[in-house]
């Protein structure tokens, strides 16, 4: 009885001291389980035979490979075009800067099917840019190029915003010092600004790639075939039901989890080293 009373007293005092942490932890647990349980159930409780079959299905493997490298090319394009924009937004003030920043966030907030339709109006065979690109042999409908522009449109804001935050965190006086030491603006960017913002840029790049991989709405409007994995899952679900869709989804989740946990680990290790 005495032991029980002592335990109750200790627990009561612990709760009083850590009340905020305990309540927040409970809330955190709810949201973590909300994310984890469906994914866990899909991956670990799906039919093993069906999963194995899907792993040997060339359509599934090709689709996953297509998704991964299309998202990778998209990220590379986003990196080349988005990082300079992020730097300008972080370092310079200009008229309508707020409007530009709002525009960058727009692809995140509009329904992605609407984004796909908007892209079709520009890159479709009979529209402005679509015609020009068609003339040089690039077609954005039902092609890899279509997948890429759809992914680019919806995912590039993640890279731009993250890189912009990274550049903002770099003390401008470090750049000033570098300039007075004889560095040109290019050298300052390459040797000081970029290396110091690299973690945010890398995180943004990863987020962009991840967003590209998961994109469905914009891609399906522009390119049904070749099928990226999100469309393949949808197609199997529509045509054959849940049993055929789950293994494909499970494989994509496993592949993505391995890649992103790996990258997070690298980022954490680098952070600790710094």
């Amino acid at each position: 009885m005495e032991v029980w009373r002592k335990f109750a007293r200790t627990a009561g005092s612990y709760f009083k001291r850590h009340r905020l942490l305990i309540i927040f932890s409970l809330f955190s647990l709810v949201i973590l389980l909300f994310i984890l349980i469906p994914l866990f159930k899909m991956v670990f409780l799906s039919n093993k035979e069906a999963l194995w079959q899907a792993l040997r299905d060339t359509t599934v493997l090709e689709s996953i490979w297509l998704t991964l490298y299309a998202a990778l090319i998209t990220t590379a394009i986003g990196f080349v075009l988005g990082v300079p924009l992020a730097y300008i937004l972080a370092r310079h003030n200009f008229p309508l800067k707020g409007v530009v920043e709002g525009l960058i966030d727009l692809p995140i907030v509009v329904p992605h099917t609407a984004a796909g339709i908007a892209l079709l109006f520009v890159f479709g065979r009979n529209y402005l840019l679509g015609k020009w690109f068609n003339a040089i042999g690039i077609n954005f409908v039902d092609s890899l190029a279509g997948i890429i522009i759809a992914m680019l449109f919806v995912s590039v804001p993640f890279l731009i915003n993250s890189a912009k935050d990274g550049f903002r965190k770099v003390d401008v006086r470090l750049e000033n010092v570098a300039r007075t030491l004889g560095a040109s603006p290019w050298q300052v960017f390459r040797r000081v600004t970029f290396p110091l913002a690299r973690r945010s840029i890398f995180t943004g790049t990863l987020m962009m790639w991840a967003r590209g991989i998961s994109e469905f709405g914009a891609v399906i409007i522009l390119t049904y075939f070749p099928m990226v994995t999100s469309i393949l899952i949808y197609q199997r679900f529509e045509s054959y039901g849940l049993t055929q869709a789950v293994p494909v989804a499970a494989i994509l989740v496993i592949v993505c989890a391995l890649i992103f946990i790996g990258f997070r680990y690298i980022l954490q290790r680098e952070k600790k080293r710094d």
Partner: protein
Amino acid sequence: MIELKNVQVTVADFNLQQINLSVAKGTYTVILGPTGAGKTVLLESIAGLHAVNEGEVLLDGKDVTNTVPETRGVSIVYQDYTLFPHLSVKENIVFGLKVRHVTKSKIAEELEWICGIFDVEPLLNRQPATLSGGERQRAALARALITKPEILLLDEPLSALDAESREEMHAQLQDTHRKLNITTLHVTHDFEEAMSLADNIVVLNQGKIVQVGRPADIFYRPASDFVARFTMARNIFEGKISGQVGKETIFKTAGQEIYAESEKNTAQYAVIRAEMVNLTPEQPVSLPNVFRGTVKSITDKGANILITLDCPPQFECLLPRQHFEKILLRHGQQVYLSFLPAAVHLI
């Protein structure tokens, strides 16, 4: 030599206005002013980091108004030394040489030379985050000077240091200037720092130069009540000249007459530095400026004691501790304060 002719710079909502300044080669000049006066903007404008709207910036007679910072031959060291956090101390120091594509052998030679001046050799393989304030400053100075600039700009270089390190770095700055004889522009809000380091002081307020002169001029002959207040003259009385007695001018304030050694016909303020005021329990004889007052407060300032006296007007007096301990004042005690007419500066 640095020359600024009618320079006007706008940075966000702040304006540097009509800056005219000439800094002789090899001198140590301190730009003194309160926070927000535009000291750093002025420094950065000389370095070419801000566009000049109007006027000219000349370095060694050459117009560099529209020249990029990397070719001006000017190095800047900021308050917290802003070492590149992702580079080792060695990489920081040789940064300026690397971006100029200096050969490896020359870099090694210059590194050895700068290590000899700033004693940074033991720090070379360390990361900036692991350095103490003093070590950071030495590394930052080494980095700024390895490229042998014509001009060194220091933005509040002692502000981030504790009292002991400040003294050490103070000596380091004097030593560096003596050894390299480099034209140095040092920004600070601390007038004692300015007094002890400067050949010349430039006082800046609200984007304008309000006085330029040797430390003694700024300290004892402030050009305005702002400079007097900023340099902690403490006794600044508003009034007017009421007459002349021989070589002395009578300045009337709050019903009292103050005798000043001045040939001025008009003045709005009389300034008497607190350390120029003497206190005695007995009335001193044959001195023109003697007032009887009551001790209102006694504040221990370490080496000095600040005493406030009600006369009226209210006077402040800074006594050396030794002197204070001799006369042993108490609150409410009646004492005589006196000062020489030469200690009175009329503005």
